[in-house]
């Protein structure tokens, strides 16, 4: 997204377009990235329920990939994930590694 010049900003920083938080991609805040390991997933959807940023996609009632544009890497999904036979379906990996 191209940043606006001072000549283009709204007077008094008033936001006149409703529902524009979608444009504010917070994924860049992440220092640890959740990675989904599908073979360990039991489709409980705990991760979908716990995610504070709606960054876990569900398609046809099944868990789909993360939405990395908005995932801040809080790690709640990885913490709550019950996994299968003691193996987590979500692990946190340091960004840039």
């Amino acid at each position, binding site marked *: 997204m191209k940043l*606006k*010049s*001072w000549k283009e*900003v709204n*007077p*008094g*920083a*008033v936001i*006149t377009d*409703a529902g524009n938080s979608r444009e504010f991609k917070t994924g860049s805040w992440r220092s640890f990235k959740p990675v989904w390991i599908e073979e360990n997933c039991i489709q409980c959807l705990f991760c979908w329920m716990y995610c504070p940023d709606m960054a876990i996609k569900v398609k046809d009632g099944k868990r789909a990939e993360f939405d990395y544009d908005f995932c801040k890497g809080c790690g709640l999904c990885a913490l709550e994930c019950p996994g299968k036979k003691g193996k987590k379906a979500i692990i946190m990996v340091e960004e840039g590694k």
Partner: protein
Amino acid sequence: MAKVVAVTGNEAVANALRQVNPDVCAVYPITPQTEMMQRFSSFVSDGQVKTELILVESEHSAMSSCVGASAAGGRVITATSSQGLALMWEILFIASGTRLPIVMPVVNRALSAPLNIHGDHSDAMGARDTGWIQLWSENGQEAYDNTIQAFRIAEHMDIRLPAMICMDGFIISHSIERLEYLDDQDVQAFVGKFKQLNPLLDIEHPVSYGPLILPDYYMEYRRAQAEVATKVAQVVLDVADDFAQLSGRKYGLFETYRLDDAEIGLVILNSAAGTSKDVVDEFRDRGIKAGLFKPRLYRPFPYEETGEALKHLKALCVLDRADCFGGSFGPVFVDIATSLYPYRERPILINKIYGLGGRDYLPGHAELVLNELVDVAQTGTVRNYKEYIGVRE
């Protein structure tokens, strides 16, 4: 038809506010402003205005209420003095940064400590860089006229900034003077219907006020606000032209008194300018080319126009009714010096601090200063660049 009356400054400004009939007024009493809001409250309870009166528990809340009501889309007023203005401090920046055209008479009074309730410019000088427009008034008539014009200036769609109307506590606020009131319908027509900009109460077009702006955008908003400040002077002049047609009273960015051919001059704000003009006349009668410069639009300060008006003088004294502790010179002096800095040929400048906490400013003080300026202009030497006058040594 204008009506000639004998009223106090507070009464005059309260009447101007009645004639404007704003949507919302947040009220908190503080001497010497109290009488103004007391009178306005009576207009509300007597049904003479349709204003929603909000009785708040502090000036911080008064200004916060004004911010909310103005963002909601109303024409909003309050009034204050001294400690009250100081308590509003953080919200003053929010009002100007959010570009809310709140109008606020400020009855100038000294700041504590020591506690003092009398005329002094320390309060408004402390708020001079908050992003508010400041119009200063010599007498009750100017305070009345400036109040009416302030609505047009603040609410101009290119400006949208809050405005203070300053007048001296007690000396003007509580003294009865002869004044001319405009007709109610003329004032109504002059200020016009309030134009909203992104009102919060327009539920068809939802907006958000007060977002967090991080380093990627904060500077752009500040730069935009600095640009708005450069447009204020022209709007002030345009509004003054319209006002002159209505009232016959002419206003500019400042008033010059016998200044065009003057060799020595005084710069002085508000009520003390009146006293000084009499003394300037006495010096003129003696063949001494004295003049006076009285700022009106003090913020945003019209540096270029001011420098242009003063650069021909040989010696100039800026009189400040406030001091900048640790800043070495009074606030008006600093601005006048800045406005003259670009000129190679410029007057010798001196600074006097006078009238703090309501200490009388007498013709003898102006005389003393003008005599010193005669000496400075003749010899080119300065005894003291800054000193207090009217103080016991």
